[in-house]
């Protein structure tokens, strides 16, 4: 039995705040003139933010020596998946009203939708194998290899956003830049720099 973790409880509530904001705005008319579009943007944004937060865990643990944060990674990843599910549900139900002919045409004919759909589908097995039992069943090595798919999913998420934008590429490029930094921080060079940065070794 683990001891209660106040940090985890706080982070859990923090991750629910965007949902609270959405529900509040939906009830009070704060989603504006086109609520379906607003829901799509906001759930998409929070999916990307939480994916990036998940990917920030390992660099922060290694480079900054924040060991406590490693325990929060699973929850961050599952919240990213949760907001991705809301994003997809909003698209399927409120945007397309489950008109499958339109949905299939969208996914097959429009690369930015294809990319988003593939990114989402990649997250499904990761969420499904997020339990301790699944980790034991798969074995650490295979589990780790499978969960590397998160890099691809995050990249596809950024591409999905980039492709959608009409003129101002700044927000998707900002996500892309953060993703690039988080990936670069994993390279051996970054690890070699660790002592130079003066961070505790974390071991």
């Amino acid at each position, binding site marked *: 039995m683990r001891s209660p973790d106040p940090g985890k409880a706080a982070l859990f509530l923090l991750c629910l705040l965007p949902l609270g904001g959405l529900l509040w705005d939906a009830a009070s008319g704060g989603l*504006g*003139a*086109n*609520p*379906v*579009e607003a829901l799509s943007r906001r759930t998409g944004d929070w999916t990307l933010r939480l994916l990036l937060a998940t990917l920030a865990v390992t660099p922060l643990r290694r480079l900054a020596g924040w060991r406590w944060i490693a325990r929060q990674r699973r929850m961050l990843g599952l919240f990213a998946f949760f907001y991705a599910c809301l994003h997809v549900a909003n698209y399927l139900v*409120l945007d397309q*009203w489950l008109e499958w002919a*339109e949905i299939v*045409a*969208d996914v097959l*004919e*429009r690369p*930015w939708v294809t990319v988003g759909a593939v990114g989402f589908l990649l997250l499904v097995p990761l969420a499904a194998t997020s339990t301790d039992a699944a980790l034991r069943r798969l074995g650490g090595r295979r589990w780790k290899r499978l969960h590397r798919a998160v890099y691809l999913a995050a990249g596809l998420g950024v591409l999905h956003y980039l*492709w*959608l934008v*009409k*003129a*101002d590429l700044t927000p998707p490029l900002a996500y892309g830049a953060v993703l690039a930094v988080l990936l670069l921080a994993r390279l051996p060079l970054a690890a070699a720099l660790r002592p130079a940065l003066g961070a505790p070794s974390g071991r």
Partner: protein
Amino acid sequence: ERLEVAVRGRFSTDEAPTSYASVTGYNNFYEFGVNKRDPARLAGSLRTRPWTVVVEGACERPRTFDIDELLRRFPLEERVYRLRCVEAWSMVIPWVGFPLAALLKAVQPTSEARYVAFETLHDPEQMPGQRRRILDWPYREGLRIDEAVHPLALIAVGLYGEVLPNQNGAPLRLVVPWKYGFKSIKSIVRIRLVPEQPPTTWHMAAPDEYGFYANVNPDVPHPRWSQRRERRIGELRKRPTLPFNGYAEEVAHLYAGMDLRRFY
């Protein structure tokens, strides 16, 4: 501020108008930011008096009009038009304005005038969105002359019976209801009669996505989304998009014999 409306009902749809709050709070006007709520928040910095419009080029009597002179000179009409954005949403807007044809007639176009080119004010001081080169400022649009003199083509100076709010393109803007919204250029300072098809802003930015003609056409998809349906602001379900935004009877003859897939 109320406007004196002389004529009502000509070419007007009887569909329910979109709420004033949505018409004035959900805008694409990149001169004031790329988010739909930015223009309502930021367009206060636009000064609409004094304001002049140059009408020049291939015409007998080129000249500069003061906005107040235009308001006195042309009887104002209310026209309740559908507006279909290229992003697949739509509104119904009770515009107040006068036919573009009346303004063009005043300068007596010559036979050289085959197209009309329009320009928005370019002043990053007043239009903060122009401080970044998101588009090739100033915003430019154009029509073929027969489109421009079509009685549906309107210069709007108001909506809902009142002076046009800045975020909707004050003090005067174009409204071409059978074309996607981006053709209906806002806050116009220059109108030029020209012999050749003029360059237009969104076409320059993404030629395969935004054509010069930009007639509403459910059969020609945007590369990134279908144009077959649209969401009327205020409604949740989508409705079918109509050819020429429902104005086919009035305007389809302008394009007789043209391949509208090529000239999208």
